[in-house]
């Protein structure tokens, strides 16, 4: 962390960047907030630890409108979002100085707290163990139990775009302790369910939705200036789910709109106050796209055509859905 601060100070001092976008210590030790630092002395509050889950790439849309260059710290999976945003002309690469930071997984604070660890001050990952510094001394727990779901099935440690790397080695193995989980496992499990059960699962999950729009507003792919659900082009303006249909409608369309653009950064699931596994919707699209149209990782580059704005003459017919059945 100190290395990051030192480098940030250097870049601020030599005028390479006008501000630093990183994380700032919160009140609790487990709630660092995304923050801008404009002066070297502000960086005393800078923090980078496994609680820093926020993907900062979306903030760069706003940062791109400010004068000067913004230094941003991006974790490996955040860089995919940045690339995707670059591709969609939403961020300005030339106004961004990216330091790729190493990541061994980010934590779901609730999980750590509910494991009975209180008075958290800091945390560090050592192998497959999470070591937490607390007011009551150092506590430990298995890393897997504390990670955000997205990190349990980490898709890689590669930074796809950066100006320099600190604390990260290119080509590091994916996943905590180098073990990548199968990110489609849960999707497959759902696909295997009978339709009734699947419907019940989603009904129960989506009925929790309070339409706070946190998933949408945090999502780097949902970068519309005005969401269709805020405007009335489709008579689609919604504020609250007044009917079970609207819960589904919002999430289906949101997932559809980011299909082929979603990098699977998992922010939607991370921020959902109701713990809805929203990334399972996005991953379903990713899985289908991979199956039907070949492996595609949104944000891996800035040139490729997104699957939904592309086609081949030999694409499968929509009938495939009923032919293969079982939601697969």
């Amino acid at each position, binding site marked *: 962390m100190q290395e990051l601060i030192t480098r940030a100070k250097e870049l601020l001092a030599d005028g390479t960047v006008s501000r630093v976008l990183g994380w700032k210590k919160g009140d609790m030790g487990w709630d660092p907030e995304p923050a801008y630092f404009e002066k070297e002395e502000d960086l005393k509050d800078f923090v980078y630890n496994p609680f820093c889950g926020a993907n900062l790439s979306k903030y760069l849309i706003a940062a791109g409108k400010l004068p000067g260059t913004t230094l941003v710290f991006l974790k490996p999976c955040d860089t995919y979002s940045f690339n995707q945003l670059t591709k969609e002309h939403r961020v300005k690469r030339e106004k961004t100085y990216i330091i790729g930071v190493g990541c061994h997984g980010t934590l779901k604070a609730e999980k750590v707290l509910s494991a009975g660890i209180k008075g958290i001050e800091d945390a560090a990952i050592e192998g497959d163990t999470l070591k937490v510094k607390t007011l009551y001394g150092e506590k430990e727990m298995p890393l897997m139990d504390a990670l955000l779901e997205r990190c349990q099935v980490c898709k890689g440690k590669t930074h796809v775009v950066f100006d320099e790397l600190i604390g990260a080695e290119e080509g590091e193995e994916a996943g905590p302790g180098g073990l990548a989980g199968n990110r489609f496992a849960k999707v497959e499990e759902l696909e295997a369910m009978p*339709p009734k059960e*699947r419907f019940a699962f989603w009904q129960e999950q989506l009925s929790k939705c309070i339409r706070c729009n946190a998933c949408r507003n945090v999502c780097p792919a949902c970068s519309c200036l005005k969401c269709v659900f805020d405007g009335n082009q489709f008579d689609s303006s919604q504020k609250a789910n007044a009917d079970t249909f609207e819960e589904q409608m919002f999430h*289906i369309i949101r997932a559809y709109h980011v299909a082929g653009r979603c990098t699977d950064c998992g922010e939607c699931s991370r921020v959902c106050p109701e713990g809805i596994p929203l990334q399972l919707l996005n991953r379903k699209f990713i899985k289908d796209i991979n199956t039907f149209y070949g492996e595609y990782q949104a944000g891996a580059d800035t040139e490729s055509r997104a699957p*939904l704005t592309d086609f081949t003459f030999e694409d*499968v*017919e*929509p009938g495939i859905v*009923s032919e293969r*059945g079982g939601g697969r």
Partner: protein
Amino acid sequence: MQVENTEFRPKIVAFCCNWCSYAGADLAGSSRLAYPADVKIIRVPCSCRVNPMFILRAFQRGADGVILCGCHPGDCHYTTGNYYTRRRMTLLFSMLDYLGVEHGRTRVEWVSAAEGVKFSTTMNEFVAKIHELGENVRLEDLRCKN
């Protein structure tokens, strides 16, 4: 004895592209090839004009099935429109299925202007399928229901 009329009359929305499928439907008409009156056609310039929003809206409003007809791949009046449709609908239908909404309620069929027969058989088949599935309750908005 009073016979209650409880026969299920599905509501079916068919989006037809102007150049092929709508003309195919016209041909079915001029050839007097019958299909159930439950099918109501909406004319769109191209199948690629059909937004998933339209399909969900139809279900919201109580449609029991939505079918989308366009030119055969390769024959699109606008060259490539139906290729996009094909991808969009494949993914959308797959998602609906994944959410537990019966996949038989949605269908894409390529019907050319010369395929009046196909149009009619497709509609007959689709309506039969919807009869099999019964009323749509999973994607319906109760506020639109009596």
